């Protein structure tokens, strides 16, 4: 007990009366190290969040209702829509009727029948525009022209990676090579039906892997292509948007209780490609973080080491008058933890009230979309723990080596 008190007293004196510059420098280093430990994982989880949001906003909404395993379509989709819609907390429900089709552009300019021309095969989604706008955000990403209206029959909206041109990221020969709003395209459906549409709008949702490679027509139009009588009330998929993201599982249970004949899944189960990316990010983040931690530890080690070397004589004197090695060690450990604690506080303040709010207001514009920082509690815990451990290590080792020297050496140098 007396020993702990003495160690505290020694640490207190050392901090209060010690070199102000050293103190400022050490705490600065600690603060920057701490902010650095938060930075990389937060950017990466910001990217992950953006990718997740894109999946939700452009492809899956929150909950996806698929046909049962033995069926191709959901029957009586309007009934399902109606049932689900009435549950409180549901923002929107939209049934999709999907197929694929060969889309051609400027097909009349082909020079011979063996010329492949400008075309390709893409997924075509039939939607009810009035419903769809409550569920996905594609309509907010129109970069040219406009979105579909409920009555549209010979209109199509193309993803930018389908239309092609300068704005697209995809190699030109894999696109329509620059179809514009107002141009005509010809679709050939798998059942042989061939139709021509006006390009009504082009969108760029920045979800390059899938969303920007879709084309939309109205569901009415799609049903008429596939066979009106049967398909008017059929859907390939129903997307559901909920008010509070994160409550997917609760709603899934409610849907199941309604006796819906289909597979009900959260969007996360679809995030196949992204979940791979996310776990790669986790690996990258922990790699960068380990390096960051080592660098922080080394810097702290150097700064504390120089500080401690200057106190070698004092440590010798303390031991000469009978203060135990453990008390001296403990007092320097307390100092190191004190520095680390202040590093956490200042670094945390700078990050939480400076860096993070700034990037929340001015997100980074990356090709995948807008990215702001997302700090996870686990990241903070790891950073705090890492910094404390690194500081303890950096404070402990030099003092340990000095207290292992003979007292005389510590006092008289060499």
């Amino acid at each position: 007990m007396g020993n702990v008190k003495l160690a505290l007293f020694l640490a207190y004196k050392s901090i209060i009366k010690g070199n102000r510059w050293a103190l400022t420098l050490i705490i600065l280093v600690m603060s920057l190290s701490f902010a650095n430990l938060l930075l990389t994982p937060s950017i990466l989880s910001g990217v992950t969040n953006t990718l997740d949001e894109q999946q939700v906003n452009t492809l899956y909404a929150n909950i996806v209702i698929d046909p049962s395993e033995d069926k191709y379509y959901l029957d009586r989709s309007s009934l399902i829509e109606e049932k689900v819609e009435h549950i409180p907390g549901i923002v929107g429900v939209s049934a999709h009727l999907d197929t694929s089709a060969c889309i051609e552009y400027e097909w009349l300019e082909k020079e011979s029948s063996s010329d492949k021309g400008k075309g390709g095969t893409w997924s075509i989604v039939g939607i009810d525009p009035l419903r769809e706008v409550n569920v996905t955000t594609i309509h907010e990403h129109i970069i040219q022209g406009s979105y579909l209206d409920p009555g549209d029959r010979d209109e199509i909206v193309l993803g930018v990676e389908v239309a092609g041109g300068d704005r697209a990221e995809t190699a030109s020969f894999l696109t329509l090579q620059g179809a514009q709003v107002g141009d005509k395209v010809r679709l050939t459906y798998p059942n042989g039906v061939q139709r021509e549409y006006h390009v009504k709008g082009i969108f760029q949702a920045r979800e390059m892997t899938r969303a920007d490679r879709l084309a939309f027509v109205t569901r009415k139009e799609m049903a008429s292509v596939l066979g009106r009588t049967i398909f008017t009330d059929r859907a390939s998929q129903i997307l559901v948007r909920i008010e509070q993201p994160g409550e997917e599982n609760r709603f899934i249970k409610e849907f199941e209780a309604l006796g819906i004949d289909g597979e009900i899944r959260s969007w996360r189960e679809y995030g196949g490609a992204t979940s791979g990316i996310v776990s790669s990010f986790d690996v990258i983040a922990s790699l960068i973080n380990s390096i960051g931690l080592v660098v922080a530890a080394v810097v702290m080690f150097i700064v504390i080491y120089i500080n401690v070397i200057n106190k070698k004589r004092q440590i010798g004197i303390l031991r000469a008058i009978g203060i135990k090695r453990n008390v001296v060690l403990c007092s320097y450990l307390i100092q190191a933890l004190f520095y680390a604690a202040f590093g956490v506080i200042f670094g945390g303040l700078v990050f939480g009230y400076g860096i993070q709010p700034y990037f929340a207001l001015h997100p980074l514009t990356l090709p995948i979309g807008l990215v702001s920082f997302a700090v996870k509690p686990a990241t903070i815990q790891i950073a705090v723990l890492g910094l404390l451990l690194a500081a303890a290590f950096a404070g402990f080792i030099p003092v340990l080596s000095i207290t292992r020297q003979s007292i005389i050496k510590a006092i008289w140098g060499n």
Partner: protein
Amino acid sequence: MIKVKNLRKVYGHGLTATQALRGVDIEVKPGEFVAVMGRSGSGKSTLLHMLGLLDIPTDGEILIENRNVLRLSDGKKANFRLEKLGYVFQEYSLLPEMTVLENVYVPALCLGKENSHKKRAAELLETVGLGERLNHYPNEVSGGEQQRAAIARALINQPKILFADEPTANLDFASAKLILELFRKLNRELGQTIVMVTHEPEDEKYVDRVIWLKDGLVEQWSTPLPISKVGISN
């Protein structure tokens, strides 16, 4: 009180090895004030470091109060220093981050004498003539005053033996005299055992006995000089 048998200390190895002590046998009785004298390099400081348990001899035995102190573990040695020994260095050895008063009571803090230590430290500082300087930092007082504070610190835990290695070497004549008289007073009035290294032949008159070292060996023990005690006290 102290018995030293065949004490040897070799610094370094091989060709560069220095034999600082080459078999020293001495004895100090309780209540004695002993001076260790000798030429520079004769091994005085080395001897005192060994006696103060600040360094480990190459060979030999040291008995303090009949305990073989060299056999103690590191922690026990520290405790022994704390409780039984006081050490005054030649150079200023106060901790710069603490006031004079705090410097003096730090060793008491370690023994957990919670309440009395401040008062006792202040009294000791009064005794060494620093009653007015309690809350000054070491760099705010003179060298002689620092040395007196260091003596007060060495005395705070009422040590059995006080060691001092040339405590007056860096001081002017007046300050040196003050300190030697303080030692004599401690010895005479409180029966404090003191072992002091000095190179000033003048100091002989303050002490009971002188141990002369030459090249790491005891050259002679001067006969006790009871006259010196009588002679100086007016």
